[in-house]
């Protein structure tokens, strides 16, 4: 579904992506892991066309992303930091995003119900707490029915119950045959949901495969130690 070929990206002198080759097939949950500054967000943003790679090519369903914007109709993206125009009310923001995507078939009502956002619908976004903003963010992402979902740190600021609901939501979307890309630092969360992980280290793909394969490769008994052993090996 997503085909990434030899992507390079520099920000000034800082070379963030140093030749990434990755292909992601339709269906399943893929976790992109890596230490801070390893290029996770840059990679995701390249797929979204927010960061323009210096070289290399990305295509989705065989179509190159260059100079195209329509393909984003098929991507539901959850940004890392939930910050919205403060003057808008929650309700208006949801309507606005729907309007921008020309999409009427949405399930925003169920999602609002699920995250118990009804009391906040008429409040201005500037007055919401960080966790509530993240819930609004989740509603905005999951209310469309695109085949590809990209979640950048979806759990940040969520309380345990919302966390649980999010997990169920992700599983439900997976059942529909969607492709879901997730980045997260919460390893227990990743271990629970991910079918396959992609480990980025210093702008390159260090490992791609299932968690069991990672454990075998690093000969560690559990996921957390496997990740830790990669990191300590690279920093040593």
């Amino acid at each position, binding site marked *: 579904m997503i085909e990434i070929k030899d992507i390079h990206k520099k920000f000034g002198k800082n070379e963030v992506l140093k030749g990434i080759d990755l292909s992601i097939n339709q269906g399943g949950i893929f976790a992109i892991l890596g230490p801070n500054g390893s290029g996770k967000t840059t990679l995701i943003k390249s797929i979204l066309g927010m960061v323009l790679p210096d070289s290399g090519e990305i295509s989705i369903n065989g179509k190159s992303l260059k100079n195209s914007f329509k393909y984003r109709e098929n991507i539901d993206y959850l940004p890392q930091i939930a910050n919205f125009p403060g003057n808008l009310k929650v309700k208006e923001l949801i309507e606005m995003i729907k309007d*921008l995507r020309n999409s009427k078939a949405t399930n925003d009502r169920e999602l609002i119900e699920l995250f118990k956002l009804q009391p906040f619908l008429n409040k201005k976004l500037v007055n919401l707490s960080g966790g509530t903003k993240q819930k609004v963010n989740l509603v905005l992402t999951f209310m469309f029915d695109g085949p590809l979902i990209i979640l950048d740190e979806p759990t940040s600021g969520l309380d345990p119950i919302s966390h649980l609901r999010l997990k169920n939501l992700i599983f439900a979307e997976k059942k529909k045959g969607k492709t879901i890309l997730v980045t997260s630092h919460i390893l227990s969360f990743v271990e629970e949901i991910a079918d396959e992980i992609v480990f980025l280290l210093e702008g390159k793909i260090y490992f791609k495969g299932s968690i069991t394969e990672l454990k075998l490769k690093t000969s560690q008994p559990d996921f957390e130690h496997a990740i830790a052993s990669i990191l300590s090996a690279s920093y040593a």
Partner: protein
Amino acid sequence: MLKILKYSFYDLMRSRWSYVYFLFYLLLGVVLLFLNNDLSKAVITLMNVIIILVPLIGTIFGVMYYYNSREFTELLLAQPVKRSSIFLGQYLGVATSLSMSLVIGLGFPFVFYGIFNSSAIWDFSLLLITGAFLTFIFTALAFVIALSNENKIKGFGYAILLWLFMAVIYDGLFLMSLLYFEDYPLDKFSLGATMLNPVDLSRVLILLKLDISALLGYTGAVFQKFFGTNFGLVLSFVMLVCWVIIPTFFIWRIAKKKDF
């Protein structure tokens, strides 16, 4: 693009600053008209205020809006919307709402004063039109500056410098060069120099229309002599339009290549 424009515009129309700006002009118009009672003088005073203040507000507001709506912009960038539409829409939203504050804020007192029955209606309309032009020009320049500077403080700094240069320093340099080269024919030079600064251009435009170019001294006299009022007016408008289009083109170009 129209959708983005609509939302930026609504967003701004609800912000306190649009009202403050609107009320300021309302107050200014009322005070000048009803305490002064001389329409022509009121227009000149207004011109002096507009020519300095409108660029300042346009620049500051443009830069501020861009930096404040960064996260929102990122949200939009992930939607199936063209990049250029996002930024041009935001720019037009800011510029339109600022122009509306100006036009309505000043328009009300003048309407109540009875401008429609007065011969000064054209002078007054011209004042509002140049004011709107200046808003569009300086907001566009502010967006160019903000788009090319990731660092907020730097962006604000350059924006203020730009305003200071256009509104104050440019005139100083212009005047100094006129004095320094007074032995040479300076008609074309001063003409060109006026054209190259939208602030000066707007001033000349209004003064030409008011037929009091003597107040402006040399520049105005040159303009009168060279163009006669009508040709000068058209040419000045063409220049103002260029001043809007060129920075807008840069917004489009920078936005196309930028990483977020």
